[in-house]
């Protein structure tokens, strides 16, 4: 490894902090790298499944990053993708089993999507791009950072979809308590459908790019 530093660097050095905070904005997996969009469409109709999905991805990504990073010098290059997949898949199965045992209702709602974490390209992408070449601690931070970057977008999308589509926030009937239905307000059923997630993500990307000009590609 090229970056062998004799003197131990502090746990939260500026470089490590970047690993956590960059994926939240400038290197966001969803809005900038456009990875993991599929699950962002599928689980964001309500806040609760979106939260559990984010949490599951956080656990899987952080753990997979650490495991791969620990093994990185032993993994034969020729089968590294297979090794990564096996590790992701087993972690996902573990998460799925734990959810089935302790959060049965949520696991029913997420149904196949937990299994589909395996195919979430954010995870493979981070393992291949980061964990294979870095020490466990930075890899762990990188995993946490990317999962948080993925998670907060999911929660924002889910917040608006649930509020406008079902009139609730975390199953709490906001619109009803505000009495908006008495004025003829109707829930927008369209918000429940997957295309609206894409549009909400699009709006987030739009806002982000108008605030951070560096993200806008030159023509």
């Amino acid at each position, binding site marked *: 490894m090229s970056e062998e530093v004799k003197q131990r660097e502090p746990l939260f050095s500026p470089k490590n902090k970047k690993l956590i905070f960059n994926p939240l904005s400038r290197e966001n997996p969803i809005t900038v790298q456009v990875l993991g969009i599929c699950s962002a469409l599928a689980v964001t109709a309500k806040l609760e499944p979106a939260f559990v999905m984010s949490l599951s991805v956080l656990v899987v990504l952080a753990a997979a990053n650490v495991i791969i990073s620990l093994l990185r010098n*032993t*993994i*034969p*290059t*020729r*089968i590294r993708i*297979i*090794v990564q997949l*096996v*590790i992701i898949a*087993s972690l996902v*199965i*573990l998460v799925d*089993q*734990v959810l*089935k*045992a*302790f959060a*049965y209702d949520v696991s029913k709602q997420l*149904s*196949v999507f937990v299994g589909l974490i395996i195919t979430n390209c954010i995870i493979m992408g981070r393992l291949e791009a980061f964990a294979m070449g870095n020490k466990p601690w930075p890899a762990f931070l990188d995993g946490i950072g990317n999962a948080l970057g993925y998670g907060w977008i999911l929660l924002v999308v889910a917040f608006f979809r649930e509020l406008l589509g079902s009139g609730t926030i975390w199953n709490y009937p906001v619109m009803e308590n505000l009495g908006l239905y008495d004025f003829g307000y109707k829930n927008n059923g369209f918000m*429940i*459908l997957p295309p609206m997630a894409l549009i909400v993500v699009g709006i987030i990307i739009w806002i982000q790019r108008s605030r951070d000009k560096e993200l806008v590609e030159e023509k």
Partner: protein
Amino acid sequence: MFSNRYIFIYASVMVIVVAAILSSAATYLKPFQEKNIRTEKIMDILKSVSIEAEKAQADSIYNKYIVEELALNMAGEATSIYKDQNFEKGDIRPFEIKLKSEIKKKESLDAGKEAEEPNFPLYICNKDGETYYIIPLRGKGLWGPIWGNIALKKDMKTVYGVTFGHKGETPGLGAEISTTEFQKQFVDKTIFDDNYKFTSVKVVKGGIGTMPADQQIHGVDAVSGGTITSDAVSDMIADCLINYEEYIKKQLK
């Protein structure tokens, strides 16, 4: 570079380690998962007679309201009776019967193949002094299995309530069968006509307005855009209830 030998050994060790971890996790978590599935079954049964049960009390509420469990053969005779936590007859608790395999047995029999005689569970519920008969349902939806429970009133032909569940019907379309709006339609419909001829309750595409007026009591509106799931619900109700026809006729005599 890594040698082929190293790669083979690496892959084998990895697979064995992973298999060991996963199987021990599955074994350890299984009791918890089975308890969840069981609790859900109990809550579904209770929901069909409009009893809302919290997860924690599901068992005790079930024991309070469900006074008898029966297993019925095709001739309508009870092969097992389970009452007050005791077997009065037989040794298979009707609650533990897996409807899926019983339906398979019946299908093989119908196809002329050899199979054991199927037994179908029936739950007798006593709520506020009224008796209700709860029949579990299972069928094939568009994408996967669908299931449910139908509760009949004392006359054994009027529907008191239903619940439906599904594995993976299309959200917004077929999946609507699990909403209360859809399920409410079944209340007070009848599965027999006045002469106790079996009619089932059909889910009608285009609405029950398209049925003759005297038939409307045996129909409910289908889900728009969910035709196949709606038909599947019709089939499921008819196929499952017909197994109880003999028993019901005996009871009424």
